[in-house]
């Protein structure tokens, strides 16, 4: 069982690495959306600094959303998903494996690049560390929640916009707590309560979301 799971994770990562442009597209999207904030709001450092936590977090949530489009869609289209369901491993574990591979290749780059974007908007030092940490804890939750939506959307006409409507309301708590952590750090308060809450969300989503994803995949394949 573990062998097949390992095969799956390795396969997914190597597929994404082969399609490097996907990673680049998502990262570029993240950067561009963040760039739009100063362009729309104006270059005053004070205003930008106040907007920074929310701006980076909104951009990250949107980037996570668009990256999830292809999480199951390719495998569904060419029939691999059927073979995976027929395979020997429990479907929730498969879902977890796929989400892990997806986050490692598409979520982690966002976390890595986020301090740069935060810096450009005026965050400094400790705040940047908190920003990266909050994203490191938060984006996996976004992936887990979004995967449920992605699995439900398989084979549905008019995917993208509907997917946003289904998934974005579920993103609200993560967004609030995640950008809240950075805000706390900016106001000389400890961000640890917020970071712990994000950790708690991850701990809840990690076992539950794969079950929902597995259910959604079964429904979509039916």
């Amino acid at each position: 069982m573990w062998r097949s799971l390992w095969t799956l994770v390795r396969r997914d990562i190597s597929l994404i690495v082969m399609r490097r442009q996907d990673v680049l597209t998502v990262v570029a999207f993240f950067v561009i959306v963040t760039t739009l904030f100063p362009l729309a709001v104006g270059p005053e450092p004070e205003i930008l600094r106040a907007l920074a936590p929310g701006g980076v977090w909104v951009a990250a949530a949107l980037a996570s959303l668009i990256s999830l489009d292809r999480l199951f869609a390719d495998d569904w289209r060419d029939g691999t998903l059927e073979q995976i369901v027929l395979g020997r491993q429990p479907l929730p574990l498969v879902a977890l494996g796929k989400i892990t591979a997806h986050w490692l290749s598409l979520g982690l780059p966002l976390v890595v690049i986020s301090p740069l974007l935060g810096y450009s908007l005026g965050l400094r030092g400790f705040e940047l560390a908190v920003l990266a940490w909050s994203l490191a804890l938060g984006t996996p939750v976004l992936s887990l929640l979004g995967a449920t939506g992605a699995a439900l959307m398989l084979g549905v006409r008019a995917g993208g916009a509907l997917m946003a409507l289904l998934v974005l309301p579920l993103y609200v708590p993560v967004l609030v707590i995640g950008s809240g952590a950075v805000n706390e750090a900016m106001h000389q308060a400890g961000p640890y309560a917020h970071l712990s809450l994000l950790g708690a969300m991850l701990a809840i989503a990690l076992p539950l979301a794969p079950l929902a994803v597995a259910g959604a995949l079964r429904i979509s394949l039916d």
Partner: protein
Amino acid sequence: MLSARDLSCRRGGRPLFAGIGFSVEPGQLLFVRGRNGCGKTTLLRAICGLTELESGHVYLNGEDIRKLDDSARADIVYVGHRDAVKDEFTPLENLAVHQGLRGERHDETRCLDTLEEVGLAGYEDVPVRFLSQGQRRRTALARLLLSSSPLWVLDEPLTALDTGAVDWLLDRLNKHLAQGGLAVTTSHQTFDGLHEANCLDLS
């Protein structure tokens, strides 16, 4: 053996088929016929346990197909319409992934032998997106030879195959049946030279 009783299915509020039953003994082939849209693919997916039917159950060796445990699920190999071949990978990598997903150890020599048998010698390391539809289909069919599963479920296996490949596939199918295997298949073409074909007419 494979058996089913009283299968019925509705799609979009419309009955697709109803009251379907059959039984396939080792060494037998079940040939599902019918016009387009009569539910052949749905029936085949139900036989694999992928689709949930409105009523009825499919049993493999007396066990409900939707409740098979992990090892029993390895008794089925399914080659569907969508052939589960990744464009980005080479045929060899595709087979390796397939073995991994089924929880088998990757056996490179066996994979190479199989690819040679399906006529893909020399193409083992070419990404599938550079291959033709027929070669792609052969990569998918190579999965049949890799596993020792007794039940083959083939949805339109002859699509995109040339005459040589068709002959080869029928030959393999006969061998599989002669060894006591079971098979369920659909096709628009008629299968010549197959023994013991039970026909199931859906329309």
